[in-house]
């Protein structure tokens, strides 16, 4: 009997799976909205160009400054110094300069425009599932859930995984939430304003190649401009040489200041790569032996060579956010950030176990509560989620991120100011800047969860879903998604 049921089940399933476009359920929802791409309703604070192919952080002013500095300095070098040098010394000089310049530009653009490894936010289902597990584990009835962390042992070291309130996921190890871009980024290194993007798993190697090649370029230009001036001085005196080639002065000044910072930064990142650490970890001193005798880096492969190869030549994972995919109309949107209390559909009483893998799970509380996550519209809501928050919610995106996301943007400059950098000395300088944001951060976790009555105003704009007891979103919405996944259609973006 059971077999008979499953037979028919299978047939029904197959026929439903294979009929993709002709499902009557889909049509009422399709006719409203034109096809939009997913980047248009991306919940983070990123800017997209070329129809989703390129992505950058919101503030790109400093990136343009970087670009201008590089272009102007190199332009002046090629126009004013190279002719002289090519004639006097060798034409190889402009060639090498040209190659270096192209390499620098290429790696800069690649770093700036690629997805650093953004983790997509949790779907409402996942978020609800996690919330349940956490509530169950804590046994709390309510209003002040303790800070959410999970501990995992990696290679003998205990690592704490934190729960991200904005993205509603437990962050993987080494991931961090960037407050500027409002995204969780895998293997988060730092947010670099000079490249106008976060530096994370997917673009770290380009960032490193950028600063390394820029160091070489800066030293190259600096030394050859000095050579140029010296050679001219031999002929016609120092002052006349300067007058003949005024651009050289500008180049020398720019290069002089750049050399200290860029070369220092390259040295610092070389150290980080060889020990397989991120800027974030180094600044926090996560794996420093000062924390304890047994404290070591569990991610290191053991030797410098393997660490370097893994960081620079390892496999490049594809982007997890499908920027150029089309939003299926009626598709469930991501769960908006909440204050840590999420509410659920009331039909939960029957569910006894959710074993989805965390060790935290036991009994599920059957308190009926109202659903806050979900929307029925296609595009607009996720874009609004960051805006439509009431009082208690607005503290979230700001308070939430871990301190190093703010300090490393300084580290781009500061670490490099201290020459020669070997990664440890600046840790002290950053030490005290960490205290406050750190305290603020810990402070916020229990604090950011207000009592439900206070929360309702926040929940209500999104609360229309509480009328739907049983579902988060239209069933039809998931059709194509499931069909796609069943059919094995994977949309990947290459950048």
């Amino acid at each position, binding site marked *: 009997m059971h077999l008979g*049921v*499953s037979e028919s089940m299978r047939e029904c399933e197959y026929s*439903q799976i294979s009929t993709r476009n002709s499902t009557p359920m889909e049509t009422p929802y399709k006719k409203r909205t034109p096809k939009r791409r997913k980047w248009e309703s991306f919940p983070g604070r990123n800017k997209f160009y070329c129809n989703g192919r390129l992505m950058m952080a919101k503030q790109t002013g400093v990136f343009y400054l970087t670009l201008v500095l590089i272009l102007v300095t190199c332009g002046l070098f090629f126009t004013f110094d190279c002719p002289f040098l090519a004639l006097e010394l060798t034409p190889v000089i402009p060639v090498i300069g040209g190659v270096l310049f192209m390499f620098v530009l290429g790696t800069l653009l690649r770093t700036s425009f690629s997805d650093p490894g953004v983790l997509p936010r949790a779907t409402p289902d996942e978020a609800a599932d996690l919330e349940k597990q956490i509530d169950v584990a804590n046994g709390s009835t309510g209003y002040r859930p303790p800070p959410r962390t999970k501990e995992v042992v990696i290679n003998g070291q205990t690592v704490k*995984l934190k729960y991200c309130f904005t993205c509603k996921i437990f962050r993987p190890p080494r991931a961090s939430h960037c407050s500027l871009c409002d995204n969780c980024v895998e293997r988060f290194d730092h947010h670099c304003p000079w490249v106008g993007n976060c530096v994370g798993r997917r673009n770290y190697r380009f960032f490193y190649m950028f600063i390394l090649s820029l160091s070489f370029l800066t030293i190259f230009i600096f030394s050859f401009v000095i050579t140029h001036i010296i050679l001219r001085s031999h002929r016609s005196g120092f002052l006349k040489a300067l007058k003949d080639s005024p651009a050289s002065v500008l180049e020398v000044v720019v290069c002089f200041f750049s050399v200290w910072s860029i070369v220092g930064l390259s040295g610092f990142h070389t150290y980080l790569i060889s020990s397989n650490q991120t800027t974030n970890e180094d600044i926090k001193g996560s794996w420093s032996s000062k924390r304890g005798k047994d404290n070591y880096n569990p991610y290191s492969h053991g030797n410098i060579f393997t660490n370097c190869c893994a960081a620079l030549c390892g*496999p490049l994972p594809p982007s997890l956010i499908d920027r150029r995919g089309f939003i299926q109309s009626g598709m469930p949107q991501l769960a908006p950030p909440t204050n840590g209390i999420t509410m659920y559909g009331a039909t939960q009483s*029957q569910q006894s176990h959710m*074993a989805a*893998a965390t060790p935290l799970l036991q009994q599920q509380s059957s308190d009926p509560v109202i659903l806050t996550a979900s929307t029925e519209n296609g595009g607009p809501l996720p874009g609004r989620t960051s805006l439509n928050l009431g009082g208690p919610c607005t503290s979230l995106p700001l308070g939430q991120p871990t301190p190093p996301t703010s300090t490393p943007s300084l580290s781009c400059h500061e670490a490099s100011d201290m020459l020669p950098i070997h990664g440890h000395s600046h840790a002290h300088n950053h030490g005290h800047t960490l205290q406050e944001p750190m305290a603020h951060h810990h402070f916020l976790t229990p604090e950011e969860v207000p009592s439900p009555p206070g929360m309702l105003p926040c929940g209500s704009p999104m609360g229309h879903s509480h009328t739907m007891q049983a579902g988060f979103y239209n069933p039809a919405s998931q059709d194509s998604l499931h069909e796609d996944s*069943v059919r094995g259609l994977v949309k990947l973006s290459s950048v």
Partner: protein
Amino acid sequence: MATEFHNLQELRHSASLANKVFIQRDYSEGTTCRFQTKFPSELESRIERKLFEDTVKTLNNYYTEAEKIGGQSYLEGCLACSTAYLIFLCMETRYEKVLKKISKYIQEQNEKIFAPRGLLITDPIERGMRVIEISIYEDRGSSGSSSGSSSVSGSTAR
């Protein structure tokens, strides 16, 4: 069929829906992609433990293969670097190739093993590699099917 879909949809709204189970990532070996093989209790009545574990283990092996750091990946990395990554306009990275294999595998598993038992696996890449989402469809006596693909078991409630 069309009427059946409509009926299912109506049923879906009024009655309790199917459930979703999420298999989370296993970070005990670092940041490489692995999923926990622990058997969720909701699937106990639906599928044999061994089948489930085999599926997850195979997926884990695929991901390990994709992220393996070895001769081939170095070669690919160096080649890519020397061509200023333009080579990826013509060729796929190894990771992408393995992801395609994974999609095919998941589709196969769905067709052969999971769908007959009223379950459907969603490819983890669609969930940002955070979870393996397994949708559980209810055994409905009247309609005979839990909605097959179209429903989505939106709710966690059951």
